[in-house]
């Protein structure tokens, strides 16, 4: 079996689902002839034709509106925004229609759409190609939000997203599109959309992260292990619904919570995690929870990018403080 990159696994999932469900449609800018700006949709148009793989104009509001229309009338569209930062012109369709369709029609219509978008910084691109705004959608009722961080999870979660009867925001960490590789089983099995994934066991700290930060978190966990601190690394993966059961179960063992995310700190998803921990698991804690996050600034241009991006060392320092300051 060959190893696939994360973006190749996305492509594999799209191929699988288009083959097995004729209602699945792919649309977006350059997704057809070009195969997608990051190659996520390569080969789809050749195989499934221009009626099912649609190159749209450069008009994200159109992509949003057409997708909502298709989804409510029986198709399962998978729309691509070239970058998460381009989603804003489509917010009216996403937030006011896709997310509310089931509620507004009293259950008569659902909106089984997937909105894919690469997100995150660290690729020497301008700020509107680098943002992480998952919290914006998490705050909006009606969406599921999924962020895969490995090839196998990208495959299994995208299948689940396409099969979901409600709209899913599917954000792909493009910084690790091609830097993580693993064998992917193309068996058509979806992964659950309401659970997190435990990547590493540990007794001292529960580290919750998602997206590209999973890489630095695992590296930090290895470094910390050499220093005698064992970190349990959990990939949140499903931002919403949020699987706090798994996290609290881990906290029962560790009593220490560290959240790592690239998005800026204020009102980030980490805030929600800390709030729920305070509400439901405070008495498990041996130390105040900690966050390692991006800054409350606009993503800086490339020369200062590394100051914004979370480094392995930042995580190591925070983890050591969590343990050493609260023995």
């Amino acid at each position, binding site marked *: 079996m060959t190893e696939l990159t994360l973006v190749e696994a996305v492509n594999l999932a799209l191929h699988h689902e288009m083959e097995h469900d004729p209602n699945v449609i792919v649309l977006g800018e350059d997704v057809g002839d070009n195969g997608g700006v990051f190659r996520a949709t390569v080969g789809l148009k050749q195989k499934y034709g221009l009626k099912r793989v649609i190159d749209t104009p450069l008009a994200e509001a159109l992509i949003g509106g057409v997708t909502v229309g298709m989804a409510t009338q029986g198709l399962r569209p998978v729309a691509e925004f070239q970058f998460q930062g381009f989603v804003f012109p489509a917010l009216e369709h996403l937030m006011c229609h896709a997310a509310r369709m089931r509620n507004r029609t009293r259950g008569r219509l659902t909106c089984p759409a997937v909105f894919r978008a690469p997100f995150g910084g660290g690729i020497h691109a301008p700020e509107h190609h680098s943002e992480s705004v998952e919290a914006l959608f998490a705050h909006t009722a009606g969406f599921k939000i999924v962020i895969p961080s490995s090839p196998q999870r990208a495959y299994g979660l995208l299948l689940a997203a396409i099969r979901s009867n409600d709209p899913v925001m599917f954000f792909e960490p493009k910084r690790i599109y091609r*830097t*993580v590789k693993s064998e992917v089983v193309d068996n058509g099995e979806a992964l659950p959309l309401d659970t997190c994934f435990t990547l590493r066991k540990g007794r001292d700290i529960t580290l919750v992260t998602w997206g590209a930060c999973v890489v630095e978190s695992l590296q930090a966990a290895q470094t910390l292990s050499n220093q005698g601190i064992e970190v349990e690394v959990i990939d949140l993966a499903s931002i919403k619904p949020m699987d706090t059961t798994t996290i609290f179960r881990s906290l029962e063992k560790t009593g220490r919570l560290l959240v790592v995310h690239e998005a800026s700190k204020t009102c980030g998803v980490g805030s929600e995690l800390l709030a729920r921990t305070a509400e439901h698991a405070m008495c*498990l804690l*041996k130390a105040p929870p900690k966050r390692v996050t991006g800054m409350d600034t606009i993503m800086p241009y490339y020369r200062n990018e590394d100051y914004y991006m979370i480094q392995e060392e930042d995580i190591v320092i925070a983890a050591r403080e969590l343990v050493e300051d609260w023995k």
Partner: protein
Amino acid sequence: MKTFNLPDLGEGLAESEIVKWHISVGDMVKLDQVVLTVETAKATVDVPAPYGGRIVSRHGEEGDVINIGALLLEIDETGAEQTASEQKQTADAATVVGNVSQHAHSVNVDDFWIGGEHNPSPDNLITALPSARLLAKKLGVDLDLVKGSGPDGLIVDADIYDEAGKQRPGTEVLKGARRTMVSTMAESHHNVAAVTITEEAVLEGWKQGEDISIRLVQAIVHACQEEPAMNAWFDAETMTRCVHSTVNIGIAVDSRHGLYVPVLRHADEYEPQEVRRWLDQTVQGIRERKIGREQLQHATITLSNFGAIAGIYATPVVTPPQVAIVGAGRIIEKVVIRDGQAVAVKAMPLSITFDHRACTGGEAARFTKVLAEHLRKPSV
């Protein structure tokens, strides 16, 4: 010799097809001379040479699809060396779409458990209020041994206090008078400018069985009347002093429940035998813990007759807002020289502490003098 890899052509694409080579091995090329043409998914692009020099080797043939970062050329430079900062800039260059790294991470991101089923609740799961955890740490209490009394076995502060006595025998939580003593004494020690003056009262004329407490009360009343500055309340914050005309003596009484200081109000109006009756009733009340709060208030000066147990001199602690306390030590027998003769006498050691913020040394010394002289008087 320098190597030249296929650069990112600006569309975020991973690969390109070689359309045409414009040079051969052995050719001399100039900086920015077009060396090959490649086709990306969107466009045909001429790729310029990044350095001048002789082509040493060429990799990939026309029609091959090659990845960004793949080796294209090796060039033997004849021209000027590129400076390090120029190299850095090349590496740092921003692109419109971004430069998605090809560099593979060595971490394994795809070894995972769905959820966390491998985390069963530990048998010794501890749920404790954060304050209880902190308390346990301070008291050296092992949380594993504590049985929580809160909801679902939650450990609360009270459980830690209870457990402290069991895990460390002899530990108790202070209550009542003993607890009050902590703050009163600490406040006094922190604020009062305490000076202790000592004196001996020679008790030549005392009858056998003289009531020491009555004599001390009488002497203090007299001394306060002679030197009222010591029978006062003082407040530094408002810079006020209240010199009292009546004498309310707080009398320190030791009990197993702690230190009590009941107040003999209007001590100046008491007959000697009434003082004794009041004392007996009060001590009895303290033993039975029946003394009311109002009986412990409004003292204007304090008496500590510690000598009834042991001790000669001491440095008693003033209780604000009072400004003075009289300590009476154990009555001693000593030899003095009188008219050239050694004479054995009985003497009561006195230790008077005063707040030097409120009283002068002179006032304290005069008070002490009057006090000692009054005690020296023979029994009535």
